[in-house]
């Protein structure tokens, strides 16, 4: 397994050159990607050119801290001049006119951006099947999903099609696919990494984070992309520690074990793996286990799907076909409207007086061409899951329903935050499974949204509270698939979850 940190050492020693490394990845992509379907586009020429430039810097000792990182970028993060489609038909040909802040930061530290990664449309999904590019396949078993929504990111790392990937996590979209694909994934604290250039799904939840082969690699990447950004009012001004150098710090970690995360619905195989790891932690003097409660955790899925869809319904309003993106055919719109009106006119001629009035009202309700064009563009542009969430979100914000859904969910969100605040006054990190099951069969949940949403049961709470979380490989399921373990940390306590993840990684090695 060629992780980024050891690759960088090889490069520094001269045992490997960056152009060769890039060529290796491009070869592997050519061989493996048709099957895994992680990349939706690869810019080999740009990567080769960059590799030459950075190789020179490595030789003269001026290379940035990410020299040797060959990075795949989830197709939800804007790169100037590249198609940023969010795996959606509505943005199929949309080229971003600017770089996301994280992209600028990666470039300035000499990371090579290799290509764009497949995902669930607008980051909505847990399987990377909701995509115009076809489903991502799990590198461990191509009949299984990669998880989602950052399925392309997890699969690209697991399939060694890049050594680090950027993903985004709104309800578990980095951690769950990391678990399914057997890689490390970090969801930073909300506000730790700038969202500028991250196409918004649910603005108060969305986080950009790394997926990689090792905790150290994630720590390296996080140190680079974290920090205040004047372009994002929700980014934090707190100093960014050097996460990698803190991995081996001594001292004991108090680990909270919340019973709510080990209840019904947890797959037996997953339970056994996670409990085995916890049992090992218990024997290790570096850990101190503490039973805790997160009583409102049981409401997290419902709360999450109300608040996230509400924000999504507003965030996705801009995709209207007016300024960019897919636009329905205006001639077809006009034709449809003409036919509808003619049909009503025909009926009016035959109707009695009372019927006539109804029909006249019906006529008045026929859409204007503008409204119909919006409808057509969005109907053709969005996939089923995105439409479902826009409708859900629109509903929960509507007059008469707002208090029962949105306002109530906001209150529950506060209660969940309080639960975590209480827990983190006693422990440093909280341990749980990352997902209730290992990767499932492609196609098996696609028509059952509720079952699909339950994949996020252990991850959404960190997004609701704004906390950080990491998924680290914990073992292999009896059916041969990887299973991850999650550590959650308090706000801006990335060092602690990275440290916990690193220790588990070492323990299981």
């Amino acid at each position, binding site marked *: 397994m060629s992780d980024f940190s050891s690759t960088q050492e090889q490069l520094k020693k001269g045992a490997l050159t960056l152009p060769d490394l890039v060529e290796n990845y491009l070869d592997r992509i050519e061989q493996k990607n048709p099957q895994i379907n992680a990349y939706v586009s690869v810019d080999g020429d740009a990567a080769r050119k960059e590799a030459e430039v950075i190789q020179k810097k490595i030789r003269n000792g001026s290379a940035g801290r990410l020299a040797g990182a060959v990075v795949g970028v989830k197709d939800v993060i804007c790169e100037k001049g590249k198609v940023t489609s969010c795996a959606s038909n509505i943005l199929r040909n*949309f080229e971003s006119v600017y770089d996301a802040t994280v992209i600028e930061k990666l470039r300035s530290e000499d990371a090579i951006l290799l290509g764009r990664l497949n995902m669930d449309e607008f980051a909505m999904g847990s399987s990377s099947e909701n995509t115009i590019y076809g489903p991502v396949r799990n590198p461990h078993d191509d009949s299984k999903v990669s998880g989602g929504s950052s399925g392309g990111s997890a699969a690209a790392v697991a399939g060694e099609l890049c050594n680090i990937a950027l993903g985004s996590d709104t309800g578990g979209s980095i951690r769950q696919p990391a678990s399914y694909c057997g890689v490390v994934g970090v969801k930073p604290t909300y506000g730790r990494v700038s969202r500028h250039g991250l*196409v918004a799904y649910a603005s108060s939840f969305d986080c950009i984070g790394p997926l990689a082969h090792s905790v150290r690699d994630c720590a390296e990447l996080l140190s680079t992309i974290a920090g205040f950004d004047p372009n994002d009012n929700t980014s934090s001004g707190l100093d960014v520690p050097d996460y990698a150098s803190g991995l081996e710090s001594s001292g004991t970690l108090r680990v909270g074990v919340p019973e709510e995360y080990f209840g019904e619905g947890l797959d037996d195989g997953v339970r056994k793996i996670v409990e085995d790891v916890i049992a090992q932690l218990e024997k290790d003097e570096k850990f101190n286990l503490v039973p805790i409660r997160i009583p409102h955790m049981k409401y997290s899925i419902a709360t999450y799907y109300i608040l996230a869809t*509400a924000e999504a319904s507003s965030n996705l*309003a801009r995709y209207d076909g007016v300024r960019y993106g897919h636009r329905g055919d205006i001639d077809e719109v006009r034709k449809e409207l003409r036919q509808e009106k003619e049909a009503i006119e025909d009926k009016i001629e035959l109707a009695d007086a009372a019927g006539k009035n109804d029909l006249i009202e019906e006529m008045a309700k026929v859409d204007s061409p503008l409204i119909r064009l919006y409808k057509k563009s969005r109907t053709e542009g969005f996939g089923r899951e995105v439409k479902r969430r826009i409708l859900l979100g629109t509903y929960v914000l509507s007059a008469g329903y707002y208090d029962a859904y949105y306002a109530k969910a906001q209150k529950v969100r506060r209660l969940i935050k309080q639960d975590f605040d209480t827990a983190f006054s006693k422990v440093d990190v909280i341990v749980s499974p990352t997902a209730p099951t290992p990767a499932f069969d492609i196609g098996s949940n696609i028509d059952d949204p509720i079952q699909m949403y339950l994949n996020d049961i252990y991850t959404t709470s960190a997004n609701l509270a704004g906390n950080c979380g990491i998924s680290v490989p914990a073992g292999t399921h009896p059916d041969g698939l990887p299973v991850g373990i999650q550590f959650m940390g308090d706000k801006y306590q990335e060092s602690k979850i990275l440290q916990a993840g690193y220790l588990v990684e070492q323990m299981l090695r």
Partner: protein
Amino acid sequence: MSTIAHEKYEAVIGLEVHAQLLTESKAFAPVSTEFGGAPNTQVTPLCLGHPGTLPVLNENLVRYTIRMGLATDCKIAEKSIFARKNYFYPDLPKGYQISQYETPICYDGSIHIEMEDYDKTIGLTRIHMEEDAGKSIHDQDPTDTLVDLNRAGVPLIEIVSEPDIRTPQEAYAYLIKIKQIVQYLEICDGNMEEGSLRCDANVSVRLRGQEKFGTRTELKNMNSFRNVERAIQFEIERQIELIESGGEVVQQTLLWDPNKLETRQMRTKEEAHDYRYFPEPDIPPVIVGEEMLDEVRSELPEMPDVRLERFINELKLNEEDARTLTENRQLADYYEGVLQHLDDPKAVANLVMTEVLRVLNEESIDIRQFPIGTERLAELIALKKDDKINSSAMQQIFNHMLKNGDSAMDLAEEMNLLQVSDTGFIEPIIDDVIEQNPDEVKRFQDGKKQLIGFFIGQVMQRSKGKANPQQVREIITKKLN
């Protein structure tokens, strides 16, 4: 409609005023707000609603709004939040407008208005911050609507009054007062015709003495101060007539047609939007601490009412003059600027109110564009005050000063208008005039004393305006008696 019917009713009016703020950059994007740029040139990816863009709050939007809040005795919320107002329209690129909903930054204020025979205080419900939409242009292309997004994201405040206004005239006075305040605060240019100040009105009528409000209608598209007054007048009469003839007022939005001088329906209550407001997640709550309040307070200028009192009490101007001079801040500043160089409030007021205002009116310019600086004007008035020139000379010099930058003294010399009080120069002229007009002298001496003007005029003419008329009068009077 009979006036009797009219008197049975009273109107209840509330105004919603939007003021476009004069910040240099937009509310949430670092790009110019200047008016008149080529379409779609003053835009960032955010203004275009591009994916991944985030609003970044312009602190001056907050400060300017607090200025308005403090100037209208509002309470300032320690913590207020932005909200999204969701609706689809081509000139609204994000599909939502960033505004404030449940927690406005300013609330519970008031504005004082003076009517001809009474004064009144109009309550302010709230003042909140929001962004403007772009501009849809329907009349430039035969088939398509064009959209200019230069205005998208320009900061606005919305000032919402309590339903305290009872007549169209009060509405007019209230609006004029808002204009005066925003101009004093230098946060908005207050121009309704250009749309930097916009007003919607909620109007209902009820029987006098009745407590319950009648059904209201909302009036839009009134793009001048007078149109607001007219539209409200029209709407009050329409509602009374409707009720008197047995009908019922329907809650709806009406557009004022300034050409036909009538209102027409825009949408009914059933068609009203559900804007699905919710807290804007991209902008943290706005926290206003004591420190910021103190800072903004220290930036506040003297407000018009206070200045008016001072002009009357300290500068001893009469109320009418003081009112004219304080009507807009720049004029008052100019006036006081002149006083800095010449401490004669009355004399300076006279010239500013006559000559200066005349030029401003004739040229349709702002006092800021007026070519004579305060120091030069003071010098001119001083020449007159020191009897170095007479009033007609002052006017001639003033007119020249408009065209070039010479000082009043230089011009007076150049134009040979300096008054001569030297009797050796004046007496021979007077003697000539007396000698050459024996008839008039006789009539004067017979008692037609108003002929003194004739003699003075003759002398002035012959002296080419240089004689001091006061002195001329004295000498002539002495000589003829």
